[in-house]
């Protein structure tokens, strides 16, 4: 009986950094499946419609793509530095670095908004008349993949920002600290994953033309 009761006692403190980390990596693997599938679709269609993809990629603005690449890489560094600051016990520095990362993430989304806005004003969006009437099959595929893949990536940026919000709150109220850094570490891992995906999206859509 005593043993039975014991089994039902809740353990409020189940903190285990190693299993947290493994859990995060397993989740990252499922993300790789998601984006990996899309990358395979992209590469097969590109192989089948090489000329159309070549032509359509000229439409994309390399400058804005490169700018977003640069700021996303910088934000990856600042969030990595934030984990270092937390481990050193520099709470304020950790929060400041998280705020910088957060603002860069917002900046990325603003650029994406401007970039998509230009496409929309040119009449290019999935299923638009301009696309259906004036583009070849291959170009339609290119822009379809462009909107789906960069859109899904932007969605990940938004989710990353939300997680970052929780990490910031945790660091601020001391629940996330040098002895329990998992939330911040995992937030960092997620943000780096988003960066990693962009590292492949950028050359595949903006550079190969």
């Amino acid at each position, binding site marked *: 009986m005593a043993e039975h009761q014991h089994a039902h006692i809740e353990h409020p403190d189940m903190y285990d*950094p*190693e299993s947290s*980390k*493994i859990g995060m*990596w397993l989740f990252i*693997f499922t993300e*790789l499946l998601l984006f*990996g599938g899309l*990358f*395979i679709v992209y*590469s*097969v269609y590109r*192989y*089948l419609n090489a000329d159309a993809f070549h032509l359509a990629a000229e439409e994309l603005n*390399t400058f804005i793509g*490169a700018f977003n*690449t*640069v700021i996303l*890489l*910088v934000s*990856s*560094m600042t969030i*990595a*530095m934030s*984990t*270092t600051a937390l*481990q*050193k016990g520099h709470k304020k520095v950790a929060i400041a670095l998280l705020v910088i990362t957060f603002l860069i993430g917002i900046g990325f989304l603003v650029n994406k908004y401007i970039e998509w806005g230009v496409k929309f004003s040119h009449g290019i969006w999935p299923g638009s008349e301009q696309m259906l009437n004036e583009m070849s099959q291959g170009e339609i595929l290119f822009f379809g993949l462009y909107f789906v893949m960069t859109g899904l990536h932007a969605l990940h940026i938004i989710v990353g920002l939300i997680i970052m919000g929780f990490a910031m709150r945790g660091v601020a109220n001391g629940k996330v600290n*040098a002895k329990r850094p998992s939330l911040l*570490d995992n937030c*960092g*891992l997620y943000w*780096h*994953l988003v*960066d*990693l995906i962009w*590292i*492949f999206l*950028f*050359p*595949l859509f903006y*550079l*190969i*033309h």
Partner: protein
Amino acid sequence: MSEDKHHHIVPYRLYVIVLVALLALTFASIGITSIELGEYTVAAALLFAVIKSVLVLTYFMHLKYDKPYIKLMVAFVFAIFVVVIVITFLDYLYRV
């Protein structure tokens, strides 16, 4: 003892160096793809992307300081992905 392993603190300086390398590789890939290399453009762009992602995984994602089984797990998943791509293209390239 395990405390030491969990609390390996990566110095700020190392992150700055990695960022500089990543930015240099980004500009190099923009440079090289603006030259007309024909079929090698894709290969060059992907090569740069792969080098960059190895840097991100090793340093930013902390794999360098993780236990071997985590490194193995990640390497295995990426290897599987590469195999799937290779098999897909073996199919498309040798279709009659």
